[in-house]
């Protein structure tokens, strides 16, 4: 029996580089093949190595990968431009099944880089508003300088309720200030028992957001989360992503909250 070598990456061409902040850029990559929102690729970042990057956009023949420069880590990739290439393998993992949200109210709460994995879900409902009932998006960043996909937020407002907030607006009256959790109690939800929620972000933000959503009457089985973990293989071998008996790379990164709530790191 010969098995294929899953560790060998393939070149993908960089079609476009979209800067968001001083340290975060979206690379629009040429890509043919099926990808689910919430899935991730193992991306070879020159001088750093491989890192799991969620798809932040799915286009016609392209995928978006939003990559953050961390220390020495991801520096060199930012010197790459359209026409150059990156090594990729994937997609891996279980993502969001947007069919589950068809015809329902959907509340999306995302913090910081947590916006990346849910962006394809938001785009799905932006382009197909008839498939949802109503989408509410609450997104939080540390400050104005940290906001990702700023132009998208303006566009999304055409189709959905968008609350964009920063932890500290430095006195800027145009920016809402406060944690995402503060906006959950007042959210207009017509039918909480049937509404679905998606929560992605730093651990503490996820914990408090879920508590607030549960208090609004959203059922545990109607909440989905996506976990960010260290991943060296993406295929259930390296062990870095394991929590209890779950491998985040295989069984996630997207989990229904009924499964996620008992997982203890």
């Amino acid at each position: 029996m010969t098995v294929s070598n899953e560790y060998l990456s393939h070149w993908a061409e960089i079609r476009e580089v979209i800067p968001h902040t001083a340290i975060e850029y979206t690379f629009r990559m040429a890509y043919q093949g099926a990808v689910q929102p919430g899935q991730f690729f193992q991306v070879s970042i020159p001088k750093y190595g491989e890192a799991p990057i969620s798809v932040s956009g799915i286009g016609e023949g392209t995928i978006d990968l939003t990559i953050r420069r961390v220390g020495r880590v991801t520096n060199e990739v930012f010197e790459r431009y359209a026409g150059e290439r990156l090594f990729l393998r994937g997609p891996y993992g279980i993502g969001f099944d947007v069919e589950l949200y068809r015809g329902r109210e959907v509340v999306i709460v995302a913090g910081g880089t947590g916006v990346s994995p849910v962006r394809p879900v938001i785009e799905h409902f932006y382009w197909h508003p008839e498939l949802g009932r109503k989408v509410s998006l609450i997104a939080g960043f540390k400050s104005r300088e940290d906001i990702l996909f700023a132009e998208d937020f303006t566009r999304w407002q055409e189709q959905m309720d968008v609350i964009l907030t920063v932890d500290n607006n430095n006195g800027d009256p145009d920016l809402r200030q406060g944690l995402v959790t503060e906006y959950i109690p007042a959210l207009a939800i017509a039918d909480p028992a049937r509404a679905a929620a998606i929560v992605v972000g730093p651990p503490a933000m996820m914990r408090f957001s879920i508590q607030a959503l549960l208090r609004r009457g959203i059922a545990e089985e109607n909440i989905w989360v996506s976990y960010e973990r260290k991943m060296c293989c993406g295929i259930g071998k390296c062990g870095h992503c394991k929590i209890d008996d779950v491998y985040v790379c295989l069984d996630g990164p997207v989990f229904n909250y009924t499964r996620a709530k008992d997982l203890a790191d």
Partner: protein
Amino acid sequence: MGYRLSTDAMNQVLAELGKQYAIYAPKCYPGGNTFSEVDCIRYGEVHTVEEIETERKSDYSFKELLLPFSETLFFFTENTIQEASVIEKDMVIFLRSCDLHAVRRLDEIYLRNGLPDFYYQRLREKVQFVLIGCPAAFDSCFCVDMGTNRSDNYDAAFELRGGQVYMAARHPQWEALLRQYGEPVEGFAPSYVTETPTRVSIPADLSPAVAKSTVWDEYDKRCIGCGRCNYACPTCTCFTMQDIYYTDNAKAGERRRVAASCMVDGFTDVAGGGSYRKKHGERMRFKVLHKVYDFKQRNGYQMCVGCGRCDDVCPEYISFSAILNKLEEAMQEVRGDGQQ
């Protein structure tokens, strides 16, 4: 069928096999232990029976033959990727019953948990296993309680008794060789251990709730997070990817995978700065539950094979088997029915 051979005849068998196979067995490396002048017993290539260490337990297992501590996966330049080639020879590995059971655990992760692993698979299919009969347990062994003391899925079995070699064959190649060099004996079966000095019992109702117990706290200080227990364990399979760039060509290099330990700092660090299980006690809980709970939840049988190597290797004299025996009390504590 069983066979008896003189050591000379067995050496001829090994020489014959050596034409096609690299033969690996536990060997004694005098003064080869990393943290003292004592002998280190680990796997190496052997050509004669005399080189095989059968009296003492190996400090490190056969694992590194299938999962090298550091393994080059491929070589890259800016535009190309070239898969690392595989060793030419097939392998024969001599190992005890606990370790043969450990092979099943490695297969579980590397062949069945998610997509199969190309590098493991291509080595694995080259291997024949020779069971080393095990007449008596060592101090820290608890294979009987883990159900790993007997094996019958070997290609051949080997045991030294009174200066003579006894063998049993299941693989036709071995059968042919032994018929040629040995003399048939009725009823030879490799010895196996039926009792161990160390005993463990794992509570039937063990659950992740045990994380809340205070038993883990003492390891915050006692465990130094060195990872030796993982590196010595025949069932630990984790690795970290490393890209190495060559100094003479900064755009070329190789990607390696290197053994990793869930007890060592950095195991869970994500690029954005997050990190989980910062306390050593939390890491101990994670490791223990993986070995005797999570793996079973996922795969239906326990991961730990009771070889006791983690106890033998720990520089802080932390005993894994002693922790297993504290789990009952820890469960009582979290159930709230223990005496406080």
